[in-house]
């Protein structure tokens, strides 16, 4: 079966199904909505990335380098808020989840396609509102918007505006979440039992539950702000009898689960990549699936670990520290099971798998340094220092963003039917990986030695490490520009990928690439799970696609 033969006699794929901008703007096709999300979140990533580069450039030397303290404070706020709320939270679920979840389940679309489109527009509105607030309100509070600074006159009630923006964005997450939950429960093709679902679906499913449960807390916070303003009842404002620490509780009660909203989907991607590129079933599939659920549950119980020195009761701190350590277990289980999957596999060094291996390297560091912050006495020294900054970049960027880009590279041929320049991709991963470590490892050293975070200016003895970090950030940036370049260039090429370029047995690769509008020409019959490389029915798929590929190229 050659590529040319497929082209003549097949159903049009989803990208051909309608032409013109309008066919996109009113589309109900989950893949097209996913693609729109993909471009939007990548736009936010670019914005947040540019802000990061400016922040790092300012820190090149002590004192003022390129901007003053006010501009710097706004810049890191923009960086944090754009990256967290506009990029990482929606990235994997809304972009890749939308494109793939129904295909992985053998469904024609998500359960509520209209709701899905609505979620995209709500996301746009929320994003524009947040950006407008930052740009015109001069928000300089950091992405955590702690009161009372964020409710003081100078920053024009940032907390209220940003909580509102986060709330609108949260609604878009809730819509996506509800859609995915119902789709997983109701639209699985015959034969896809719960334990034959891809782990990516398990991860997205756990995330969806978190989104639906955690986001309303933002609405409650917003409501409390309104009550405080309108009726003068002290809630967060100490001058009228409120408690600023209460805001931190509300903030982290949402934002800690949000950390798992950000990382779980990334872990799901790593399971897919590791299986496909090792050609092995996931080692301990059930444990990995349940570890996602466990992380989702624990994530609701540990928000206070952000507040060990905030003045919350010492007993509360002790309890939160204790519970926090239980988060380490499911994360460890996943890591060990991925290693088990690679054991005795047939391991490919294709660029998506390089991303997966980079993830394991970086996420190990991110996870292990989390232990330093979960332990009470060491946290007192390290919290609010660059150590924390480095830790969460290892988790969020080294974890989620590397996984996301691994996923983008892996499903690029599926989504657009084209392959990118693999040589350039390998160079890009290397640049990003090396640059990332230079940027953030130096920050562990800075933080432990006593460099506080959110500092425009710093004592001269920290300058050298700051310079190293800044150079690293330029290397990372170059790596991502390269990625942008070869991915965009690939879109101009002919559709040349073939249906199953990675010879995977997972269901999403058993339809054409790009898929037809309804994903499958006939409802697929599922005889094996997504990772059953040694199943007698699965092996021929690998062999067939591998040999067809050789002919085509």
């Amino acid at each position, binding site marked *: 079966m050659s590529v040319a033969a497929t082209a003549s006699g097949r159903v049009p794929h989803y990208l051909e199904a309608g032409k013109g901008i309008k066919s996109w703007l009113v589309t109900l096709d989950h893949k097209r909505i996913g693609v729109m999300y993909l471009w939007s979140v990548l736009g936010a990533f670019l914005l947040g990335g540019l802000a990061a580069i400016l922040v790092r450039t300012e820190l090149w030397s002590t004192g003022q380098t390129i901007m003053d303290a006010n501009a710097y404070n706004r810049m890191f706020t923009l960086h944090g808020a754009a990256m967290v709320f506009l990029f990482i939270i929606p990235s994997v679920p809304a972009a890749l989840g939308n494109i793939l979840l129904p295909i992985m389940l053998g469904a024609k679309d998500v359960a509520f396609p209209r709701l899905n489109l609505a979620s995209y527009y709500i996301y746009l509105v929320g994003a524009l509102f947040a950006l407008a607030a930052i740009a015109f309100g001069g928000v300089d*509070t950091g992405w955590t918007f702690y009161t009372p600074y964020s409710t003081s006159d100078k920053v024009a009630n940032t907390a209220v505006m940003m909580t509102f923006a986060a709330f609108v964005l949260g609604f878009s997450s809730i819509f996506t979440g509800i859609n995915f939950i119902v789709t997983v429960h109701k639209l699985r093709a015959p034969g896809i039992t719960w334990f034959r679902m891809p782990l990516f679906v398990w991860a997205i499913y756990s995330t969806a539950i978190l989104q639906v449960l955690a986001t309303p807390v933002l609405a409650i916070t917003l409501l409390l702000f309104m009550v405080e303003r309108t009726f003068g009842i002290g809630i967060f404002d100490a001058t009228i009898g409120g408690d600023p620490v209460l805001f931190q509780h509300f903030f982290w009660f949402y934002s800690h689960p949000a950390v798992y909203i950000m990382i779980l989907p990334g872990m799901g991607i790593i399971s897919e990549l590791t299986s496909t590129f090792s050609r092995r079933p996931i*080692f301990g599939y059930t444990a990995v699936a349940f570890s996602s659920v466990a992380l989702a549950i624990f994530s609701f119980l540990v928000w206070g670990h952000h507040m060990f020195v905030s003045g919350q009761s010492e007993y509360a701190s002790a309890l939160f520290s204790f519970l926090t350590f239980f988060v380490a277990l499911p994360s460890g289980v996943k890591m060990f099971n991925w290693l088990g999957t690679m054991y*005795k596999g047939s391991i490919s060094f294709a660029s998506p798998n390089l991303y997966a291996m980079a993830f394991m390297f970086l996420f190990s560091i991110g996870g292990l340094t989390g*232990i*330093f912050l979960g332990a009470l006495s060491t946290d007192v020294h390290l919290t609010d220092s660059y150590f924390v900054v480095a830790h969460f970049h290892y988790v969020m960027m080294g974890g989620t963003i590397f996984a996301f880009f691994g996923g983008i590279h892996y499903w690029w041929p599926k989504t657009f039917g084209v392959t990118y320049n693999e040589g350039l991709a390998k160079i890009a991963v290397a640049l990003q990986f090396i640059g990332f470590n230079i940027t953030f490892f130096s920050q562990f050293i800075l933080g432990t030695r006593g460099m*506080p975070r959110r500092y425009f200016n*710093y004592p001269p003895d920290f300058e050298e490490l700051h310079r190293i970090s800044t150079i690293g950030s330029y290397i990372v940036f170059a790596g991502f520009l390269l990625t942008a370049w070869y991915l965009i260039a690939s879109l101009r090429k002919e559709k040349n990928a073939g249906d199953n370029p990675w*010879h995977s047995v997972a269901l999403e690769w058993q339809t054409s690439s790009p898929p037809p509008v309804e994903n499958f020409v006939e409802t697929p019959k599922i005889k094996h799970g997504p990772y059953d490389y040694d199943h007698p029915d699965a092996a021929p798929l*690998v062999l067939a696609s591998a040999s067809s590929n050789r002919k085509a190229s």
Partner: protein
Amino acid sequence: MDRVTDPTFWMPKGASTVAGDVDQLYYFLYWLSVVLFVGIVGAMTWFALRYKRKSETEIPHGPHHNTVLEVTWTVIPLILVMVIFVWGFRGYLRMVVAPGDAMVINVTAQQWQWSFTYPNGVVDAMDERKDKQPVNGAKDMPVLRVPAGRPVKLVMRSNDVLHSFWVPEFRVKHDIVPGQYSMVWFNAIEPGDYRVFCTEYCGQDHSMMMATVMVMKPEEFDAWLKKKGGEVGGGDPVAAGALLYKTKACGGCHSTDGKPSVGPTMKGLFGRKEEITDGQPVTVDENYIRESILEPRAKLVKGFGPVMPESYGNKGPADQQLSEKQVESLIAFIKSLK
């Protein structure tokens, strides 16, 4: 006993009595992480090279799961993290419970400066030493002078937004929350100079909100404090508090000799365990006294009615409200009634 530790590759000098324990836990975690990291990444690299794909059509076979292994790699980490929890918790307890004989220094934080007030009313002075330049573009560097080898407890309050007090060499840090007193304590081992950073973002000049802790020989510290106290004169908060106690008519309802009258006696109040109507018993500390004065209805002492005037707090008319400074003096006075 405790001695100052030299800076290592990671940690700065350890100059307080809690630093040693923090550093031990830090380095334990560090080496544990190194071992685990090398194990994980080593296994990954080894598998990737050892099982590198040889042909496009190869289909490998291997184990799908292994219950013994999976239980092991859940249970061993569980034991490890419990040990770490207990270790961290014990160190933390030492950091949060100040010794009873600690010298109290009042700290006021506001955008973007520190100020320190001593028990005898002396307010910190700027650094007079010529060779000490302010860093980070700070206009001036207030100095917190403390005696070496004696516990010092800081009772900190904020005039505006959140701030945080951090001396990296002491390994102690605490946020300063408006509307309440925040406490931190340390015992600096040897004379020396250390930097104080504000580590909770507080607006434009957050990074310039710095101070110096100057640890002095105890004799020198005592001499300095006495000399300064003489210069300031009349600034003694206990005396100021005693005066306020009279002028604000506290004595009308509270005795200082141990006999209850309309309200409970102030004698020996500090540190007492107080029974509260509708609530858990509380141990009287600075925050409790502050609340009792500014919001008398928040916690009622068992056996007394809600009669203490609310006018000292911000519910009262402006001329009757007490300033933070006055509250601090009253607390100093009440604490002196042993």
